[in-house]
């Protein structure tokens, strides 16, 4: 009997292990395409000592540089942004972060308040697949799923990505068990420039009111931060396109006033930040480039450094060593991207 049980366990272990290998091979590696897919997972290697947490969509991971905040003010910060991150995903990013550390300030970019439904399965995957398994991840999945998705396919990504067998490339084998770091504490660097020449006319909406769903999650986020003694700061990041309507802005202003929260609309502080949209964006206004992100961060740092609990931590030797390594990686990527720009006229790879 014992032998039989051992045989069954061994067999099950072999099947699970081999299917695990198959899964590791077939899941996307986000090395040459959709690189932002690694962002959610990169957090865990950088968790533990961050005073400021940024959550939101691409407007946070493109427009702020934690390295600048460290270099200029000794502020430890991390960005947990993912493409088209919805407000409920931002909420769960905060909850997940609280499992590893308790930041003093959470910065939420309100641009995603306009979405009250899951945007697409692809965006969900980019935000959720990288999260470590916990009840928080499960809840995030449940809140985010489109009609066609199933929780099972998140538990066993093989069931979702099995059809990639026909598009496997060298990187799928090479990066089966490791990944290439993309971000700098969540910041995704781009050094190239594509100036804003003409902004598309915004399409008027029939109704500018944010939905009940969004307010529900914003209240939940506020309550969570209050319960944990965290200051919640609302921002509208400095991307000038897609359009941020005045009607939306007013609702956030009112909400912040009512709940005694700070709200900063970077679009209204262009002179203070020094953002020049002919030089500081890499895609004609959608996202800031390195120069823009550093300007933004430098200005925002003057505000953050005065927040309760946020201190200059450059005296901490351990932290300094850690951030020096991050700075080295930052500078190396910067150099690499400038080299690409010089040689080919464009940035073809982040790394």
């Amino acid at each position, binding site marked *: 009997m014992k032998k039989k049980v051992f045989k069954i366990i061994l067999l099950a272990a072999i099947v699970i292990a081999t299917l695990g290998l*198959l899964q590791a091979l077939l899941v996307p590696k986000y090395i040459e395409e959709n690189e932002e897919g690694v962002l959610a997972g990169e957090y865990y290697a950088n968790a533990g000592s961050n005073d400021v947490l940024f959550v939101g969509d691409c407007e946070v991971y493109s427009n702020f540089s934690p390295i600048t905040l460290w270099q200029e003010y000794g502020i430890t910060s991390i960005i947990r942004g993912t493409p088209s991150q919805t407000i409920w995903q931002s909420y769960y990013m905060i909850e997940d972060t609280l499992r590893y550390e308790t930041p003093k300030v959470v910065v939420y970019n309100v641009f995603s308040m306009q979405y009250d439904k899951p945007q697409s399965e692809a965006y969900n995957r980019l935000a959720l697949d990288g999260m470590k398994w916990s009840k928080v991840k499960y809840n995030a999945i449940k809140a985010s799923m489109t009609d066609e998705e199933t929780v099972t396919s998140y538990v066993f990504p093989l069931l*979702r990505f*099995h059809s990639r*067998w026909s598009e496997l490339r060298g990187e799928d084998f090479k990066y089966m068990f490791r990944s290439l770091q993309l971000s700098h504490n969540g910041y995704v660097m781009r050094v190239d420039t594509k100036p804003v020449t003409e902004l598309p006319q915004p399409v008027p909406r029939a109704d500018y009111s944010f939905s009940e769903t969004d307010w529900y999650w914003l209240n939940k986020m506020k309550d969570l931060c209050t319960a944990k003694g965290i200051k919640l700061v609302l921002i509208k990041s400095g991307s000038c396109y897609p359009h941020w309507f005045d009607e939306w802005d007013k609702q956030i202003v009112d909400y912040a006033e009512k709940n005694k929260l700070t709200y900063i609309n970077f679009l209204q502080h262009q002179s203070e930040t020094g953002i020049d949209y002919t030089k500081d964006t890499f895609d004609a206004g959608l996202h800031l480039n390195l120069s823009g992100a550093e300007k933004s961060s430098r200005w925002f740092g003057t505000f953050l450094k005065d927040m309760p609990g946020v201190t200059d931590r450059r005296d901490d030797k351990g932290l300094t060593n850690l951030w020096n390594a991050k700075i080295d990686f930052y500078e190396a990527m910067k150099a690499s991207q400038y080299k690409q720009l010089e040689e080919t006229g464009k940035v073809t790879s982040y790394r």
Partner: protein
Amino acid sequence: MSFVSFTFLAFLAAVFLLYYLIPKRFQWMLLLAASLVFYAFAGPTYLIYMAVTILSTWGAAYAMDRVWTRQDEYLKDNKELSREDKKAYKAAQKKKARLFLALCLILNLGILAVIKYTGFVLQNINNIFGTQIRILRFALPLGISFYMFQSLGYVIDVYRRKYPAEKNLAKCALFTSFFPQLIQGPISRFDYLSRTLYGQHDFDGRQFAFGFWRVLWGFFKKLVIADRLAPVVVTLTGKAENYPGVFVLGTILFYGLQIYGDFTGGIDITIGVAQMLGIKVTENFDRPFFSKNIAEYWRRWHITMGTWFKDYIFYPLSVSQGMIKLSKWSREKLGPQIGKRLPVYISTILVWLATGIWHGAAWHFIVWGLLNCVVILISQELAPLYRRFHERFAFSNTRAWDVFQVFRTFWLMGMIRVLDVYKDVPTTFKMLGTIFTTPNWGKLFDGSFLKLGISGADYLVVLFGTLVMFFVSLAKGKGDVREMLAEKPAVPRYICIWLLLAAVLVFGAYGIGYDAAQFIYNQF
């Protein structure tokens, strides 16, 4: 709850676990509960239709059984009765039993006729008479044609005194609703299924493993072959006029493979799941694509439906008073040759008409049924000619000739089968005609087939899957493939199973990006 869903797999896991944990005497009750839950997933209101079938068949069988029991007791107690009196008494009892049978048949077939065929009939009345009667369409309860025919077979068997009625209403309900075979059959017989359905089953590792392998094999056929080909068939038949000639040959081939993978795959899952529960379900296929003629094909494809129509329609019709009279009349008036054939032919035509109608309320199903019938009857008539041909030409008794016959039957049956997928009967015949008028052979080589909804890699998967299916079918001719596999040493055996599992998981057409096709036979 589709067989190819995570919900079904979770449901199965729960059923298996409970089934082997609870006291064995409750196992059949668990199956009944599981079956009702399974059916409720399709729509709770459908349970009402099923309840009507269960109650009416149980009631009718129970009443007939009482008639027969009383008859036996009466005859036992009254042995002194004359032969004539006994005969008269029996006739009176039979009349009573027939009344119960008739009521049950009328009620059930009436429901089936109303919900399945009202729209079709009204549509045709409007078309023929130019009327504007509002077309009523009813939602068709899942698997109604399957469970109803299975239950009616049981009632007829009780009427024929083949076996006594099942007195327990809950057991009767389980026979009708047994979840693995609800979606697409097979149409089981009570005497066979009940032997294991109500039994008490210990966990048997070997049977469980065999059942699991069969389920896996079913998923392979359904997900790797059938569902991968589904988009091609939809493209080829959606705008049929854009795909003449060689594309029609493609439709015949691909739809043949699709329906084979889909239907036999589904039945493999059914039989495998039942086996994992220790229950034996009748086989429904016997390597049909190896048939050498259409009649043989129909003895090997959807066997339980064929035997149902044979046992409950063809034979009773052939020996009915009306047919006997017709036979007598035709022998006198039309001669012995025609006289002998006429009743058989009429019965055959009626059976095929019923088979077509059973498949669905549409003209293409009726034409499909009648075409099968015509081919079978012609083959029957030409049988002497074939015999002479075989006697005369030695090559017709070779292996190569057998292969030719198999090939011919596949394509002939395929040409009839595509009536299912083209939008109507005229389109089907028009498209079949283009094989000869505008074959466009060049389209085979200019990449046109790669623009039908699947890629070259997908075709390779289909080819690989079909080859595996072919060789497994060949091996099946020598016995149960699972038995052969079980005799192999552990390592190659488990590698085979793992490869099958991995092939289903990796090459299966399921999940996002694939519109997982419903089982085709669900609709019937």
